[in-house]
């Protein structure tokens, strides 16, 4: 078990190091998210009256679109120099490779969310600073759910034609529990809703994360082989 | 309180679609068998009757 954990650690370390040196994913994700926020202000009439109701949906759309961009690039680095073939030849657990990729995409999206959330509050005058820890918790739960399924399908569509289009087409319908779960919980939190209403959604999000991290861990082996 | 128009619209769409799908399937089978027959005449004769 510790051996597998060490594999996850080093695989994740490799990706994070590359990201720190090159910064190509994070920068483009950040500017993409920022431009979405600007588009939202033109597309919708956001006032201080309705911002609390709209914020969860808008924020989650921004996170999900940026996350999909990141997923599309996730395996590119490993494919470019035949690094993927070398990794597969190495005595490595395929599940470890999956977990490392999930954690890497999760860290990218989490960093983006930590940037975007306060920025959203400032730009749209949303006074949610005291609720920020709760908002972040549910956003991260949803983000994990997005990544566990997303990484699997990024690998599945890797060798398909029109894969940049195919990935969101496959992913978004599967993401509906995550989208509804995060958007509703954030609406309850921001609308000062009752805490008991959060419980079923919390369970749903945790259940989604657990079911699909197990499924992805077991299934990625078939995707990478051959 | 009739609404027979809606009923016939629904029945019409359903059975026409299923009929068209069935015919398309049969044509696809025929084409695939014929394409096979060009290279392997004996093989296509063997399962030709099934289509």
């Amino acid at each position: 078990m510790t051996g597998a954990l060490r594999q996850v650690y080093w695989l994740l370390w490799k990706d994070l190091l590359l990201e720190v040196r090159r910064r190509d994913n994070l920068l483009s994700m950040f500017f993409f998210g920022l431009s979405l926020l600007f588009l939202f202000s033109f597309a919708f009439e956001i006032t201080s009256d309705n911002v609390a109701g709209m914020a969860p949906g808008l924020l989650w759309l921004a996170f999900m679109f940026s996350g999909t961009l990141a997923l599309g690039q996730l395996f590119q680095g490993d494919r470019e120099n035949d690094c993927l073939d070398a990794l597969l030849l190495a005595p490595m657990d395929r599940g470890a490779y999956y977990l490392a990729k999930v954690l890497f995409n999760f860290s990218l999206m989490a960093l983006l969310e930590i940037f975007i959330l306060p920025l959203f509050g400032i730009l749209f005058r949303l006074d949610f600073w005291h609720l920020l820890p709760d908002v972040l918790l549910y956003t991260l739960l949803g983000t994990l759910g997005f990544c566990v399924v997303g990484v699997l399908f990024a690998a599945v569509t890797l060798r398909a034609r029109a894969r940049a289009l195919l990935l969101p087409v496959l992913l978004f319908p599967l993401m509906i529990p995550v989208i509804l779960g995060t958007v509703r919980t954030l609406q309850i939190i921001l609308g000062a809703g009752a805490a008991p209403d959060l419980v079923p959604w919390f369970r749903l999000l945790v259940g989604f994360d657990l079911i699909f991290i197990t499924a992805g861990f077991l299934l990625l082996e078939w995707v990478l082989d051959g | 309180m009739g609404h027979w128009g809606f009923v016939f619209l629904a029945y019409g769409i359903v059975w026409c679609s299923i009929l068209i799908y069935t015919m398309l399937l049969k044509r696809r089978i025929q084409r695939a068998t014929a394409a096979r027959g060009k290279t392997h005449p004996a093989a296509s004769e063997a399962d030709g009757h099934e289509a």
Partner: protein
Amino acid sequence: MARRILGTLALILIVTGLYWGLVEAPPDARQGETQRIMYLHIPSILVAYLSFFIVFVGSCLYLWKGERRDDNLAHSAAEIGVLFTALTIVEGSIWGKPTWGVWWTWDARLTLTAILLLIFTGYLLLRSLIEDQRRAAVSGAILGIIGFLDIPLIHMSVYWWRTLHQPPSILRPDKAPWDNIDPAMLWPLGINFVAFLLLFFYLLSLRIHLGEVEEQARRDRLHDTA
């Protein structure tokens, strides 16, 4: 030969079902003649669910044993399932117009059916966009499994999304539609259900045969070029 008998039986039952549904069955007290659409609607959604269950079973078997036959089964069932899901939505929409006054409403069941259609058209799209047959089969199997596991979660989330926000709509998931049904309507429903089931197995065997012929043709081509 067996297929021809199956097809003939299905045809006889379809004609009987048409007669019972359109002539023998009395019009509904509240919904009038439009109720007759239900004799198609309920069997088609049940057949659609059955086919997605078969996709799941075929996908699991394929990943486990790696036999083409199981993949062909899953692929065939998915294609027929998409047809019947699409028909279910069309029937529901035509039924909804005179009953609810609108073609579409974001009712939990309607939404769930539409999401099913999206996921499994995605399945067909994914398969058509991957050249390599083995890789297409593996990718399809993974989507078939993940999609099926996701259905209960999507169902829960969509149901909560609607019921926590507005009173339950006419079709309630907690109440089976046949609970308060007249026996005079149960008969045509039963006949139509058996008819749809036979039709489904007829179409499935036809589609499986197509898959087999295509597979043989592919193998012949490979043989000739080699």
